[in-house]
């Protein structure tokens, strides 16, 4: 093959590739096909492997549990006593919270339904450049793109792409992740930005007069429409005025250990409208009789 023919072939292939690439950018046909087929096969291979691994691990753990059961029992008894004491101490606060909730009739958000999912793997293959995990639920089992993910500790991320029974989740530590948050105590709004695996998160656009303190918990504000309001996301580590912008420079740490996730909860939108009714109108105030001068 002559050099001229080689160049011609390379040029034709390049044009074909760019044509396919821009056509796919418009239609997303190949992305959908790859997600439906490639991701589905990956999930189908990994799900039984993960189940077998879990079974083997649980058998191993059970053996060790038996060996160290006495020791653990002692520790647990001590912990129960400690927790009972703490429960007693917090009982009054809990009762107060219940009373306050009943008082303001806080609407319980029924627009999200939790669904359990197993983590199948972390990022896979040369094409996985974003900070992500693969889970065992797809668009036919509650894992549609955009669905938020949480654990009992806090927010994990949201579904990026899905096949029928598996999906890929974008973690909140990825540099392309943006989450609208509030600080829990001072209610200062900001945007939480991921900085990559193992890096601290950054909170942008927090006003300089905001009284955010280190140790404060950041919760989702729900203003971005992607996440339900009130999910804990991160803990503030460092607060200082920014040298470059008119906002505060805040560093935070995710509450969830994203490197060792095993099970997660998907918050599937139920489609139910968010209850806006805050309860009945307040009852007519019955006080002492009005003075005669005030009556018409």
């Amino acid at each position: 093959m002559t050099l001229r023919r080689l160049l011609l072939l390379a040029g034709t292939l390049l044009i074909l590739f760019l044509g396919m690439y821009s056509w796919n950018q418009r239609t997303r046909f190949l992305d959908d096909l790859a997600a439906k087929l490639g991701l589905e096969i990956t999930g189908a291979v990994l799900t039984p492997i993960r189940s077998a691994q879990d079974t083997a691990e649980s058998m191993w753990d059970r053996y060790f549990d038996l060996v160290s059961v006495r020791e653990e029992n002692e520790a647990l008894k001590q912990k129960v006593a400690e927790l009972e004491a703490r429960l007693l101490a917090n009982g009054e606060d809990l009762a107060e919270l219940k009373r306050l909730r009943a008082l303001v009739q806080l609407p319980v958000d029924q627009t999200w339904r939790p669904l359990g999912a197993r983590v199948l793997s972390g990022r896979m293959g040369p094409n996985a450049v974003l900070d992500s995990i693969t889970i065992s639920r797809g668009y036919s089992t509650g894992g549609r793109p955009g669905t938020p993910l949480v654990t009992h500790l806090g927010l994990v991320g949201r579904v990026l792409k899905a096949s029928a029974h598996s999906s890929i989740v974008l973690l909140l530590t990825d540099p392309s992740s943006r989450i609208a948050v509030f600080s829990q105590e001072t209610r200062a709004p900001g945007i939480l930005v991921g900085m990559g695996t193992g890096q601290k998160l950054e909170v942008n656009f927090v006003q300089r007069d905001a009284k955010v303190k280190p140790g404060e918990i950041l919760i989702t504000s729900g203003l971005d429409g992607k996440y339900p309001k009130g999910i804990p996301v991160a803990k503030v580590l460092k607060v200082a005025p920014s040298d470059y912008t008119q906002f505060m420079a805040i560093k935070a740490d995710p509450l969830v250990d994203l490197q060792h996730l095993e099970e997660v909860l998907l918050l599937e939108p139920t489609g139910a409208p968010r209850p806006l009714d805050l309860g009945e109108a307040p009852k007519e105030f019955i006080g002492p009789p009005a003075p005669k001068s005030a009556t018409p």
Partner: protein
Amino acid sequence: MSKFSSTAWWLCFMAGAIILQAAVPGLDVLTVGLIILLQERDYKNMLWLLPLFILLQEGMGTRPFGAVIVWYAAVIVLFKMGRWLFEVENFIFVFLLSACLGAAYYAVAWLMAPLQNLPLDVQGTLDRSLIQAIFVPFAWRLLVATRHWNPHDQEN
């Protein structure tokens, strides 16, 4: 290798590759399969395996569709260039090819990042390309051994 055992070998290889890729982030095990297909000039199997490799990698990845095609095109071009100079069954050839593939791995990531509007993690990509370069020759040696292994030969 009969047609049935060859198909079974490739299916086992793909399942093993997915499991290994789940364990090592960023690693492409299927590249080794592509090198074996090129060495054996098995274009009939390549016709269905290469699109499947591409769909698998694109499906389990997070980049928009296209980067894996460039990556596998680089593998094929580098292999064809190496074929002019070396004997393709030679370990040294595969060793040199894998070194070039390590560089190609980084080059593809660098090329596709601005095109797909994604940030390039220089340190992470360098680490992954190094792992890829180290992995290929040893995996190739192991896989070629299993492909040429015949129980009837052992009995005789």
